[in-house]
């Protein structure tokens, strides 16, 4: 730790006051104070957001002798109030796995050879330039992540979109959050949740839509359970396709057949209208009705294109549309008893109950992901239960900065940090802030994630730089995309911290700094931006992803656009980036404030965070003089959409007679490249498995631990059975966690996606089973 004289004096001042406070208030603890690290065994604590899911828990990282040794929950962080989940508590161990990548490697004559990182960066810049010159600007691409820090994503977008002139910028959040974004954009004209986690302290009813919060967002789930225990009138309903730990803790578990959530949501709206539970004052003042195209396809073919077209309808037409969705009709399709549909509708419709709906991958990884997001908003809009404490349709995120980096910075092919590439005024703003000619920014989007990897397979893309993500585990229909990446004239650069199936296909591996080995910011599910300082040094030659991109940008001649010094580049990048969001709809806190606090929610206007957007009591961007202002849309109204039920891209048939559903477990995060290096988590669940219904297992003649072959039209995977484990699928469905690279279940899944969001559906394809 470097100290100047003045900083030392401030430490002395702080420690003197803390010692005095300790004398006046015995037992007083100051967990947020960064003590001086030395060889005395003293642990200093410094704030950071957790590295794992999108909840954004604040943690305090304990450091002794330059090594992170402990984690505790940050009591000053309103997200988790001092609590962590098992992944958070053990997270520092991920920094010290024995196979950590600490040096750069370059493929020479088929073998990966260690080289100095500067030599590897020279090669990356050279190959990037050579490919662009020979094959055009759209032959090069960068593929990042919702685990990118905000500065990582910002410099990637600036280099590729602003300087190199290609919109070949995508991130793995396309695989997890794109439907949430298009849901927000089509219903409200502006992205990200209107509510905040305080909704949990105010709601009477929680409905989880295909969302196993007990395992995926355990700290938030605990807060929900604590709320139920503390108050007498709280009910939790789990609405899902398989029984999970969330179902066990809920007051009621309701199972539906895959894809029929679309029909059930419409049936709830039908019931609300039929029983006149509509909040007419709200609807007449703040809602307009629309319909879009139908029979919109599934995107399984290359170059698939779709553009929706909104048409205004009136309430009577919407009511007529819903007549196909009586609870009795929907019961036959969905398997949900009509009385349960009516029960859920009554909860939403009761004016005395505050209702929060939560969802995550179940609704987003869906070939009609945009539609089901729209439909849950429809329910809340009809009854006016939105944008007020406790009344919240709440889309959760799965990665620490899917919101902060991908959605807010705009690291998707069509996006810019403010707005989209298709709009001239947005391009002009970006060009001015980035100091590049506006002509550099191409007005046409190129490839969304699935199509980007198809383009790599076809040879339209020949150079790809992959940072902080592991697509050779996560891409659906994986075999095609792995074979594509391995083709002779493709050049693949991978920045990562551990060897993975993605580094296996790399021509260059760059050692990356991980989490608190660098300074950065994440943005969580509730619009909260969280800064973290560099707390420990990265190992060997590992370098932050941000600085790797800056090094390459400078080698390509863009020194003017990337002027920052290695000592303080994060602050400089942040202050440049936040210019894009100036104004009351998205104002971000200054670098100074972010450094001081355990997260700040945007819009941050006149020193105040905005808890509930679109509500004039809380949101300074409301200007229409009414109680609510849905200012994202030109008509200042939220849009209710008539969206029908349409079947999944592939459903079980006589040959492939089971649904395959994939997902996660609490112990492991995503592809397991980090959590499988944490001994206690790895030992808890050392390998993946296939969950079967006990009667299906009996029919197949397998018992726990016996091997089952899962076969689809794309591939097959043989893995151990789990029967009556933590999750139990209904008859006719199997579930496989995807964290284990020894069992690449995505060789079996289908690369169908929502035509509007382009997000693949990992929850539904058809397979058959054999005893192996």
């Amino acid at each position, binding site marked *: 730790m470097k100290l100047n004289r003045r900083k030392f004096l401030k430490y002395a001042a702080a420690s003197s006051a803390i010692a005095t406070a300790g004398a006046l208030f015995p037992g*007083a603890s100051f967990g947020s104070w960064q003590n001086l690290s030395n060889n005395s065994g003293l642990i200093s604590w410094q704030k950071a957001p957790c590295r794992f899911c999108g909840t954004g828990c604040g943690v305090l990282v304990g450091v002794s002798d330059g090594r992170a040794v402990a984690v505790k929950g940050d009591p000053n962080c309103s997200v988790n109030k001092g609590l962590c989940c098992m992944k958070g508590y053990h997270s520092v161990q991920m920094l010290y796995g024995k196979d950590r990548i600490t040096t750069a490697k370059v493929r020479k004559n088929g073998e990966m050879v260690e080289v100095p990182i500067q030599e590897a960066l020279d090669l990356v810049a050279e190959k990037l330039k050579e490919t662009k010159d020979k094959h055009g600007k759209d032959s090069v691409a960068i593929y990042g992540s919702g685990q990118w820090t905000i500065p990582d994503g910002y410099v990637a977008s600036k280099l590729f979109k602003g300087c190199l002139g290609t919109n070949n910028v995508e991130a793995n959040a396309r695989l997890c959050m794109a439907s949430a974004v298009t849901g927000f954009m089509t219903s409200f004209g502006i992205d990200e949740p209107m509510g905040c986690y305080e909704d949990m302290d105010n709601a009477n009813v929680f409905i989880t839509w295909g969302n196993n919060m007990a395992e995926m967002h355990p700290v938030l789930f605990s807060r929900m359970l604590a709320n139920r225990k503390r108050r007498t009138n709280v009910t939790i309903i789990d609405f899902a396709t398989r029984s999970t730990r969330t179902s066990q803790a809920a007051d009621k578990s309701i199972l539906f057949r895959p894809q029929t959530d679309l029909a059930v949501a419409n049936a709830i709206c039908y019931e609300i209208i039929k029983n006149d539970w509509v909040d007419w004052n709200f609807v007449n003042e703040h809602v307009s009705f629309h319909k879009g195209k139908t029979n919109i396809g599934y995107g399984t073919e290359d170059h698939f294109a779709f553009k929706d077209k909104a048409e205004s309808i009136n309430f009577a037409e919407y009511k007529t549309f819903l007549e196909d969705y009586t609870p009795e009709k929907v019961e036959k399709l969905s398997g949900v008893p009509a009385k349960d549909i009516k029960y859920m509708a009554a909860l939403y419709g009761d004016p005395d109950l505050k209702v929060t709906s939560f969802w995550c991958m179940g609704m987003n990884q869906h070939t009609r992901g945009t539609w089901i997001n729209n439909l849950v908003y429809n329910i809340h809009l009809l009854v006016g239960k939105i944008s007020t404490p406790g009344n919240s349709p709440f889309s959760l995120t799965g990665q620490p900065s899917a919101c902060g980096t991908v959605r807010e910075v705009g690291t998707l092919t069509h996006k810019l940090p403010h707005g989209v590439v298709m709009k001239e005024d947005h391009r002009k703003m970006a060009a001015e802030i980035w100091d590049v000619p506006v002509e550099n920014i191409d007005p046409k989007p190129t490839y969304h994630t699935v199509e980007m990897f198809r383009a790599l397979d076809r040879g339209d893309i020949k150079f790809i730089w992959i940072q902080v993500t592991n697509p050779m585990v996560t891409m659906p229909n994986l075999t095609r995309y792995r074979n594509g990446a391995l083709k002779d004239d493709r050049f693949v650069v991978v920045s990562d911290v551990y060897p993975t199936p993605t580094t296996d296909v790399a021509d260059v591996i760059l050692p990356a700094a991980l989490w608190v080995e660098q300074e950065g910011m994440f943005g969580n599910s509730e619009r909260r931006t969280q800064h973290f300082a560099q707390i420990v040094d990265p190992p060997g030659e590992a370098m932050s992803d941000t600085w790797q991109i800056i090094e390459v940008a400078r080698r390509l001649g863009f020194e003017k656009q990337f002027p920052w010094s290695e000592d303080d580049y994060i602050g400089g990048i942040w202050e440049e980036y936040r210019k894009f969001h100036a104004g009351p709809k998205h104002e971000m806190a200054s670098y100074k404030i972010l450094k001081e606090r355990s997260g700040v929610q945007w819009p941050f206007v006149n020193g105040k965070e905005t808890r509930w957007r679109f509500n004039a009591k809380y949101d300074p961007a409301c200007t229409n003089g009414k109680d609510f202002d849905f200012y994202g849309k030109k008509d200042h109204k939220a849009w209710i959409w008539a969206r029908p039920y349409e079947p999944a891209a592939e459903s079980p048939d006589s040959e492939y007679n089971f649904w395959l559903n994939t997902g996660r477990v609490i112990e492991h995060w995503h592809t397991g490249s980090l959590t499988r290096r944490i001994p206690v988590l790895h030992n808890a669940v050392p390998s993946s498995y296939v969950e079967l219904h006990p009667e299906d297992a009996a029919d197949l003649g397998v018992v726990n631990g016996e091997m089952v072959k899962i076969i689809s039209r794309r591939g097959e995977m043989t893995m151990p059975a789990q029967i009556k484990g933590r999750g139990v699928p209904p008859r006719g469905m199997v579930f496989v966690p995807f964290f284990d690279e020894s069992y690449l279940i995505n060789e079996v899944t289908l690369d169908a996606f929502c035509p509007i969001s382009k997000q693949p559906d990992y929850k539904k394809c058809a397979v058959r089973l054999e005893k192996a």
Partner: protein
Amino acid sequence: MPIFSYIAIPASGAKKALCMDLNSLAHCEVIVSDNKDVVVLVTDTPDNDTEDKLQKSLNNLQSLQSLSLAFGYDDNEKQGRD
């Protein structure tokens, strides 16, 4: 260029408000106790005029019950006798 540290006691129920108020002032760093109603304030001002203005701002905070000096240092103070 004075540096001071203080024990700040919030008005009843106003710990969160006090932290917000102190954080919004320039030249202030706040260290909050996790478990007691006490806050440590460290100030670092560039000159005496700024220090005077800061003192006035601190005196006007409704969320602050009392402020006790724990540590003080000023570059302009001469050490020893002339």
